[in-house]
């Protein structure tokens, strides 16, 4: 049997924590660990930054203007 590792547990619940789908009790447990653990706190903070970065990277390539014009040309006459 392996000993309970609070940091490993905190890593496991990182995504549901950020997505706000943990139960209140689970969330409180994670928060109290984060309060006292710099190691995990850094990694959570990084994850927040990363999510913003991924979103921006995904939005970086804009839709070509010509495509927008082609889409507009697909409109049907008023019916």
């Amino acid at each position: 049997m392996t000993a309970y590792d609070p940091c490993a547990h905190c890593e496991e619940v990182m995504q549901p924590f950020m997505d706000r789908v943990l139960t209140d009790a689970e969330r409180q447990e994670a928060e109290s660990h984060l309060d006292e653990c710099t190691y995990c706190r850094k990694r959570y903070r990084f994850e927040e930054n990363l999510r913003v970065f991924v979103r921006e990277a995904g939005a970086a390539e804009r839709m070509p203007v010509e495509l927008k014009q082609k889409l507009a040309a697909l409109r049907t006459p008023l019916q």
Partner: protein
Amino acid sequence: MRFEEEALALSDQVYRVARHLVGSREEAEDLMQETYARAFRSWRSFQPGTNLRAWLLRILTNLNIDRGRRQQRTPDMQPLEEGDYFLYNKLEASGDGDSDEDHVVERLSQNDVVSALSEVPHDFRDVVVLVDIGDFTYADAAQILDIPIGTVMSRLHRGRRILKKGMADQAVGGEVA
């Protein structure tokens, strides 16, 4: 506003998602045109007051599947995935000692993200793109992809880990001395 104008006003946001669901810009452009052509033909089946952006993406993902672009199913060999701290640990170890969590992310380039994302197997990537880039809720993603919400959550969880592993490889592992 007419239905068509509303749909066109959303086209930038739809394209942002489409661009990462398929492999190339050309495919994304073809798919956008097919999607809008079909949407304009079948506007009567849209229920006013519901999420038009999700409706358009439902059409788009169905067309994408119909066209066989998504034939490759998730391979039996499951992609390598690491824990959620893996990427940070890698980036931190690769740096010059500045492990400030607000700066470590700057060791990634947008290109690292885009190219790692394109390597994530489709089933996982679809969900990551819809939720993390398209900003759809779990429920919207479930409806768009026609899968249960629990499947959205588990694919998202694994997909993000696969993506982070890929970004670590791009940013650190891929470096040639």
